[in-house]
């Protein structure tokens, strides 16, 4: 992760100096959540942040995003890509698996592990990889989606009940999966809550979320001097005091 971030940071510093524009440091996860919040006009949602590297159930407390539940091992996007590689599907695997899953019919039993608001998915991946080649890939794709998405939505629903919140938003690349969003909508409808959806192209990593969040930070007077700027690989979402006031 470090080298990728350093490459991006070098480009940002160069652009800042070249164009004489202020440099602002943005937390990637916060940018995802801020974009989802602004696009959906959410008041006080529980947010499911699910991407290649993250799987977290988050909500805002006292001006910070707090992680209430998360994966204890691997992220869902990572699981999908790892399985896709084993099954001989290219990277990224998620979109292809979603198409294959539409033709799957049979639910193959896979480990389902929810611990309160946390989930664990490494056992599910191990089981999947041992079944690759032995079961039809369409059924495996269908089963992994049904099992893993249900785990995430159960954890999200528990967070909504525990925090007494009635809005759910999803962000992160796995949110581009329409089955995940369909399940989220059903879960919310059944408990009288609202699922806050927005166009698919804004779920995955995008430049708009970084630009929008940096504008919020800029409005609050945040500036980063080029010589002070650095990458923070382990900068957790709850370490950020949220920018507001756009």
């Amino acid at each position, binding site marked *: 992760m470090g080298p990728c971030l350093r490459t991006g940071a070098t480009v940002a510093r160069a652009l800042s100096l070249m164009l004489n524009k202020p440099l602002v*440091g943005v*937390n990637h996860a916060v940018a995802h959540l801020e974009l989802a919040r602004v696009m959906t006009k959410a008041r006080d949602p529980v947010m499911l942040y699910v991407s290649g590297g993250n799987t977290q159930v988050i909500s805002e*407390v*006292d001006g910070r995003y*707090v*992680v*209430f539940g998360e994966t*204890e091992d691997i992220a869902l996007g990572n699981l999908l890509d790892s399985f896709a590689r084993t099954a001989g599907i290219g990277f990224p695997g998620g979109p292809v698996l979603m198409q294959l899953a539409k033709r799957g019919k049979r*639910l193959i039993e896979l480990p*389902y592990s*929810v*611990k*309160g*608001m*946390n989930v664990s998915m490494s056992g599910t991946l191990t089981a999947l990889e041992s079944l690759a080649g032995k079961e039809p890939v369409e059924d495996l794709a269908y089963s992994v989606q*049904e*099992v893993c998405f*249900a785990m995430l*939505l*159960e954890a999200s629903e*528990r967070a909504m009940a*525990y925090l007494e919140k009635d809005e759910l938003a999803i962000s992160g690349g796995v949110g581009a999966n329409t089955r995940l969003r*369909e*399940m*989220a909508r*059903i*879960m919310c*409808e*059944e408990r009288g809550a609202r699922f806050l959806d927005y166009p698919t192209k804004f779920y995955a990593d995008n430049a708009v979320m970084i630009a929008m969040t940096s504008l919020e930070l800029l409005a609050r007077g945040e500036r980063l001097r080029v010589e002070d700027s650095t990458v*923070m690989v*382990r*900068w*957790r979402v*709850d*370490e*950020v*005091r949220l920018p507001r006031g756009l």
Partner: protein
Amino acid sequence: MERRAVLKLRVPKGYRNAQLDEALRKSRTAGEALSLHECKRGGVRAPYVYHVNPEEGSILMSHVEGHTMTDLLRSGDFKHARSVGISIGRLHAQGISHGDLTPSNILVSEGEVVLLDFGLSERTGDVENLAEDLNVMVGALQSLVGEKWTTVWDDFESGYLESGSSSCAMALERLKQVRGRGRYRRKSERRSR
């Protein structure tokens, strides 16, 4: 003799594949009834099971009057932390993990601690699961009472270790090991950006 009872019904979840949903509701209903019963051997208070039907996902159990730990902590009442620790210590000493140990699943009834909602419990004695119970408790305390969580935790921990069981000591050790990860650290130790 009149008794108040509660019927807990696990309703099907429309978002979940029907086959998966049915299997989960059955196994959780059966597991919850078993843990509600077994925890009492070690002196843990929990509702009494009158009837259980895993097929329809229902448990009929005794009604318990009381205040949730969540409400007590919100109102600034921290004095039950040690008793809660004793209760969880007794549960863990028997190798039972709760699986969703938030303060809203802990009741104080006439001064006594009563544990609820054993649907995600496991009876394997796995230290990892016991430590996860403690981890959930730490997280919930931090979000409920903020910086004061350490005071509550210290009382909880002294009660928790009172059972003298080696699995409790190991679970606590495991919790401390993983504290290096962001959210186990105290807020004041975190960098603010």
